[in-house]
């Protein structure tokens, strides 16, 4: 299986890549290539020009400054998993990366590619919503900040222009009164989610002062279960309240029926992932 013909350019810097995006018609960035190349082989995508961004140092690396963690867009899944900074300060991202694809894919696939690609089955977008992440995006006119909240507009449709590059992701280090939960239902190892839910919860005494519930693969793009969040915020969470939140999750889902199941099944599974993630998050925030 082979792709259409294209020209290949290895970009030496972010500026070089942006210039090529501007000058070469329908050019595409090549990150890990594990969504783009399969699509090109199936001829769902036929970009005439690929800009390889694997050798740009500014897109690599994970560092902690104050309480902000900066993750280069070209950080691979396996680098996320191995990162001591993330294990200590953002374990949700580590647990999510462990459930993406398989070891070989995780050696190539990048967090930036996963966020920008636009398949509702991608796991990082919902995680970014739960973490309230901030994206650093660079274009011809310089850098801008873009909250994850509001970035995901639809399938293959994000708040990023064709001549812009996602440079880095910023997330806040997890605090002592916070806890995360992450559950992803899949048919087999390496598969995309039937439904998945990352949850980030903040406690103030016994009350939940803040909660963010992300949902993967149950809508045209990653979404938050906002109604469920509102129900839980300011409350002491017990199982009755979690049940009510689960009902709101089902109402928020609009999954497409496919080989992974019917729309109804997927919505119910999403609710179950949320129940489990909230319970884990509560327990972790308390301990």
């Amino acid at each position, binding site marked *: 299986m*082979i792709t259409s*013909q*294209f020209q*290949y350019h290895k970009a030496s810097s972010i500026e070089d890549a942006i210039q090529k995006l501007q000058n070469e018609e329908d050019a595409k960035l090549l990150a890990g290539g594990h969504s783009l*190349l*399969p699509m090109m082989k199936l001829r769902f995508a036929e970009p005439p020009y690929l800009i390889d961004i694997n050798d740009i140092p500014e897109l690599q690396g994970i560092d902690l400054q104050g309480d902000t963690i900066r993750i280069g867009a070209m950080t691979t899944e396996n680098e996320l998993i191995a990162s001591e900074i993330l294990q200590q300060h953002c374990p949700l991202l580590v647990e999510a990366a462990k459930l993406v694809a398989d070891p070989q*894919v995780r*050696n*190539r696939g990048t967090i930036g590619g996963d966020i920008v690609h636009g398949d509702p089955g991608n796991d990082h977008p919902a995680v970014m919503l739960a973490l309230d992440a901030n994206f650093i995006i660079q274009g011809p006119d310089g850098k801008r900040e873009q909250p994850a909240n509001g970035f995901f507009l639809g399938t293959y449709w994000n708040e990023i222009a064709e001549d812009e590059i996602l440079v880095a992701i910023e997330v806040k280090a997890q605090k002592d009164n916070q806890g995360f939960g992450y559950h992803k239902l899949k048919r087999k190892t390496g598969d995309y989610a039937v439904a998945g839910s990352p949850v980030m919860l903040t406690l103030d005494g016994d009350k939940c002062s803040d909660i963010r519930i992300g949902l993967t693969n149950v809508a045209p793009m990653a979404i938050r279960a906002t109604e469920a969040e509102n129900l839980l915020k300011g409350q002491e969470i017990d199982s009755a309240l979690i049940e009510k939140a689960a009902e709101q999750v089902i109402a928020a889902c609009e999954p497409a029926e496919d080989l992974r199941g019917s729309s109804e099944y997927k919505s119910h599974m999403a609710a179950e992932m949320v129940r489990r993630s909230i319970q884990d998050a509560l327990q972790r925030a308390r301990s």
Partner: protein
Amino acid sequence: MAKHHISFNLNGKPVEALVEPRELLVHTIRENIQLTGTHIGCETSHCGVCTVDLNGKSVKSCTVLAVQADGGDVLTVEGLATAEGLHAVQQAFVEEHGLQCGFCTPAMLVRAYRFLQDNPDPSEDEIRWGMSGNLCRCTGYQNIIKAVQSAAKKLQQA
């Protein structure tokens, strides 16, 4: 389309090739350099039978462009055995019956080799997780896991 002249180390020996940008690494290895130990199964990044080692990491060579291997280090199943005989991982697959038809085996071996470099003393769960990018349609995996366990022991004693 302009072809690219690439060179890389394959199993420790320098090789060169003239490739179109769209040529996949697995095609260069099999058709250009004619080392056919690396197999092609799904060609859509799922089965893992095209797994090779690129710069010390397991990758699916059907999902890496040949131009991306330029200047790199590639290891295929042909690079495992030495003049002294089979590699410990290969020997373990023979002894534990870690294969039936053999189609998935070259990639299983290259993956097991890299996995044990990264994690020399793995638990069974870690082996299952570490080998989960490689599909086998024959064995039911049990003997593959046993072979990796046995190879780990051998390599630790060596």
